[in-house]
């Protein structure tokens, strides 16, 4: 575990020593507050749901931007050769990088807490859906991050890693949508519905924390982290 901690700290230093982390956080907060409050005053309801329904779309670009550098940059700089010859298991490196990205996303989310505080000051919102919304957003962000991390193992170009990450996340997000379900063969529909990220997100967003949704998110995270470890490991055989 101390190895994982060391990787987390190294990655966080990488984020916070450069302007990247600050730019991410500022852009995220500005964009989400602006999009939320623009509608908030028009509708005039103390409701956070519009905020959380923005999250799958904002995270779609925000999270792959966080994850794109994690492996791609190591390969570009050649430092992957240092990392992979340290007494570090491959899964420890992958997990450390994942958790570092998750820390950055959590910090950004934590700082957005000013939005529900403002809403609570102006009105009287339900706390259940807000807590649920945050948990759901974090889980969704973690799932996106695992996908983005996997995309980052595939290339040494950060821009390509970002684009692959967005495309994968977008696919995962929309496969459960009605419009997709109509156009696929009937027997695939329930599978697609289950795989779709959006469906699971909206049920948590309503304040209903269902173990099936939690299991779903952990499966997606586990699956893509496993794939990342696999790609990283297979490079040793090339």
């Amino acid at each position, binding site marked *: 575990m101390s*190895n994982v*901690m*060391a990787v987390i700290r190294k990655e966080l230093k990488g984020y916070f020593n450069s302007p990247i982390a600050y730019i991410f956080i500022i852009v995220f907060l500005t964009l989400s507050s602006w999009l939320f409050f623009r509608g908030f005053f028009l509708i005039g309801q103390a409701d956070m749901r519009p905020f959380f329904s923005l999250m799958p779309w904002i995270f779609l670009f925000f999270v792959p931007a966080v994850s794109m550098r994690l492996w791609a940059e190591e390969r570009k700089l050649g*430092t992957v*050769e240092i990392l992979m010859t340290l007494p*570090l298991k491959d899964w420890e490196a992958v997990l450390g990088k994942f958790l570092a990205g998750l820390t950055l996303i959590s910090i950004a989310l934590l700082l957005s807490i000013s939005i529900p505080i403002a809403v609570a000051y102006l009105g009287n919102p339900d706390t259940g859906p807000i807590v649920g919304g945050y948990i759901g957003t974090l889980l969704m962000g973690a799932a996106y991050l695992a996908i983005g991390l996997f995309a980052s193992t595939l290339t040494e170009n950060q821009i390509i890693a970002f684009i692959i990450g967005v495309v994968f996340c977008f696919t995962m997000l929309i496969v459960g949508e009605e419009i997709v379900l109509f156009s696929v063969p009937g027997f695939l529909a329930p599978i697609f519905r289950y795989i779709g990220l959006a469906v699971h997100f909206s049920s948590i967003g309503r304040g209903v924390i269902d173990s099936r949704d939690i299991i779903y998110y952990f499966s997606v995270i586990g699956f893509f982290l496993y794939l990342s470890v696999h790609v990283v490991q297979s490079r040793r*055989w090339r």
Partner: protein
Amino acid sequence: MIEVDGISKRFGPIVAVDDISFSISRGEILGFLGPNGAGKTTTMRILTGYIFPDTGTARVAGYDIFESPIEVRKHIGYLPENNPLYTDMSVWDYLEFIAQVRDIPKSERRRRIDEVIQICGLESVIYRDIEELSKGYRQRVGLAQCMIHDPDILILDEPTSGLDPNQIVGIRELIKELGKEKTVIISTHILPEVSATCNRVIIIDRGKIVADGSPDELSDMARGKLSIFVSLKAQKEDVEAKLSELPWIESFTEAPSTEEGALRYKITPSDNDGRTEELFKLAVQNGWVITELYREKATLEDVFRQLTTQDEVAA
């Protein structure tokens, strides 16, 4: 310390390493020589566990590279080719990260980092970002990184590339010092570096070992005759007549002399038995004054060129 047993590695159609076996014991400083693309880096990457060989295996400090890769890596300090570094970290942060992953206990970490900083002369740049450092300092950071856990084995891929002559001398001294108690493998294509630092040389060409021995042994291996140079103060006709009578002289030519009034000859003997003594006796008998007499020594360059180009001609 290291036993390599028949390793091969292909990259697509290219055979990078072709059935190489050798072993290295403690206290040896092994120079890995070869032209670019000969398989030096691939061999080192296999030993450090960065990549696995297709066939064969190796044992490092008693651990098999397939069975206990983590143990192998614990015993090795590795400076990869081109010295990759996390440029967005400060020197201190970087070394601290390496120390953490290298399992150096927290209580000793500071002392160890201070120690390598001092050995590598990094005191003045500890808190600078690696990005800002000159190439020489970066190289020292790379060396500090691979020594921090006081490993038994150091594998350095072109440790002096890009350094200025003073820095090169410094690094060589450091490697020699380390080689007293550790096993060191350095790869290079700079030949004087090998003569200056190594006590054993392996020359590798197109994935195969073509020579293995001490730098002196390899110099002796150089085929072809070593010329003898002699400068004399004597009658030209006399000298040339006497020289042409000697059976072991294949040919001799007059060489440009640096001394006023002296004759200088380059003598090509038909064997490699020395013969300088015989020349001296001949001079004494004839009353010639010798001002210079030496036998040319084959350098590693000669060996290297012979071994790594001869097949091409044949092929």
